[in-house]
């Protein structure tokens, strides 16, 4: 076999693999729907979290800036969507107008957070971002006065779902003999957006900017000496990560139809961080895997933990929610102890996190 044929078979087998995965992803919601629409919703959540985690991955994985207030951008995006597409202000803009606005507003918040904290590194940055997240949440919670912007702790309800003209993503429909429920339609939309996010992430990683982030992460002083404008590049990481969060927040608001400050607490930031860490900081596929695992496994647990406890003790002793959180905590600790570079480590991260001083 000559070398061209070899390359050709290799390329072909790769494309066969991609096609198979694509087919599986297209068929997945119908398989899940057979097990119950709830599972389709969970799949949607997994995609949403993957999207969110990809955004955080830019900040934490690529640029190495530990952001613990990331959920604030998600919240900002969600509130932007909710305010512009709900009876709250009687505004009903279409989603393709709002999502970019949400991304932009979140981006501004990202720069607002980034600008004063640029000088800080590592753990200080973590705590400041954490404080920032709390500040945003407190404001969301209290800005029902002097004029009712966020409707306080009650949150905003009856948020418009996504729609293209008459095509409403939340309604059930039958197309070509197949029953498309609302969640299934959302699934495809979310999947498309996630693919876009993955492509952007992959392209960013190997771009000039991506390499600059990597340089800063490895050694900021050396990076500056190499002529990288660290201030601008770090701000860019914050801004980009925040925009991802803003878009994800908008999607979340549309799918849920209801948001309140409760959804944007510190624990959520930690959860998204767990996804990034579990999958492998800096590795796009790892991050997606982390998000999918950490969304599905707790749900599966919820499915059998409660019945098992019921049959063993006659009552639920440990709430599934508690188990979920304990799992997150354990995942963080065990991953750092035994596999610090994540399930699917990025090559550079692996070297970095396993090196000895």
């Amino acid at each position, binding site marked *: 076999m000559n070398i061209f044929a070899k390359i050709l078979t290799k390329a072909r087998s790769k494309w066969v693999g991609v096609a198979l995965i694509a087919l599986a992803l297209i068929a997945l919601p119908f398989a899940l729907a057979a097990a119950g629409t709830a599972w389709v919703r969970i799949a949607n959540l997994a995609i949403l979290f993957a999207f969110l985690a990809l955004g955080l991955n830019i900040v934490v994985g690529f640029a190495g800036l530990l952001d613990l207030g990331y959920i604030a951008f998600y919240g900002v995006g969600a509130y932007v969507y909710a305010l512009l597409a709900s009876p709250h202000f009687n505004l009903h803009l279409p989603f393709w107008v709002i999502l970019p606005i949400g991304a932009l507003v979140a981006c501004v918040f990202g720069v607002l957070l980034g600008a*004063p904290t640029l000088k800080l590194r*590592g753990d200080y940055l973590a705590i400041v971002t954490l404080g920032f997240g709390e500040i945003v949440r407190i404001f969301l919670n209290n800005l029902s006065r002097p004029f009712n912007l966020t409707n306080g702790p009650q949150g905003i309800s009856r948020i418009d779902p996504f729609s293209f003209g008459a095509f409403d993503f939340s309604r059930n429909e039958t197309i070509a003999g197949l029953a498309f429920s609302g969640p299934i339609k959302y699934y495809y939309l979310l999947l498309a957006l996630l693919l876009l996010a993955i492509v952007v992430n992959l392209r960013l990683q190997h771009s000039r900017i991506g390499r600059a982030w990597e340089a800063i992460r490895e050694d900021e002083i050396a990076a500056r000496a190499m002529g990288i404008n660290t201030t601008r590049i770090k701000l860019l990481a914050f801004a980009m990560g925040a925009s991802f969060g803003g878009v994800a927040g908008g999607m979340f608001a549309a799918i849920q139809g209801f948001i309140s400050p409760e959804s944007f607490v510190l624990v959520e930031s930690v959860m998204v961080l767990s996804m990034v860490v579990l999958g492998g900081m800096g590795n796009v596929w790892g991050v997606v895997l982390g998000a999918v695992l950490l969304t599905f496994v707790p749900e599966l647990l919820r499915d059998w933990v409660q019945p098992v406890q019921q049959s063993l003790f006659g009552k639920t002793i440990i709430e599934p929610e508690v188990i979920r959180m304990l799992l997150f905590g354990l995942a963080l600790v065990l991953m750092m102890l035994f596999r610090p570079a994540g399930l699917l480590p990025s090559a550079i991260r692996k070297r970095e*996190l396993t090196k000895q*001083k």
Partner: protein
Amino acid sequence: MDIFLQQIINGLTLGSVYAIVALGYTMVYGIIQLINFAHGELVMIGAMVAFSVINALAGTHLPPVLIVFIGILAAIPVCMLVGYAMERIAYRPLRSAPRLAPLITAIGISIILQHLALLVWSRNPLAFPQIIPFVTFPIGGAIISGVQIAIILTSVLMMGALTFMVYRTKLGIAMRATSQNPLVAGLMGIDIDRIISFTFIVGAALAAVAGVMVGTYYGIAHYGMGSLLGMKAFSAAVLGGIGNLAGAMLGGILLGIVEALGAGYIGDLTNNVFGSNYQDVFAFMVLIGVLVFRPSGLLGERVGDRA
């Protein structure tokens, strides 16, 4: 009533609690440059254990002060044990790892402790039983309660004891040596691992007492009380200059006063646009402000940039 004086008194009370918790952060940071994110959870565990004991003893006819004292005595060893265990399990294996790793395990430990507490004590807060009569004393147009006096006195006492330990005992010398240069300290025959464990244990004991104090002050303790308190105490430590003991004390008390005055006056200053529900924002504003304008803190010896 003199609002200003009253808020100063309230601020001093909370501030001394912050100071005690901040000492735990600052000691650990001083010695291994780690922000022990889970430190706030130690405060929570201290409060929960003590409250369980106090509630169990509330029916007996022991004097109330003795009951609270027994509660504190029960909480301290539990917290010490947890503090020791967290250092051994989550931080020691990662001592030579890059910065990000122990920080992430710390977050993990914090979540685990919080939810273990939820399992043990359930979601419902524990209330402080009505055993201590609510006594108040007027001073210059304001009032100070017996509990407030007790909190402030206990804090001062503990700060004194800690200062004595760090600056006047052999163990303290070993701690300071380790914080300056662990390698050389090790060469001088100091068992570094033991000193680091000891630092965590002392910090945990302080946290236990702080937990009881803040729980008694507010009258309740619940599984989620640690994180916000921890963050504020950390802000206090940064305000004073992290790694610096006197700084942590000063920072804690200042932060308490800033918070109390802020909560007391923000309504008047902004024509009631913002109310005291923004109280929790001040600590973070202070934190961000300090880090931006004076990262080394008020008395700081370590620069924020080193982190």
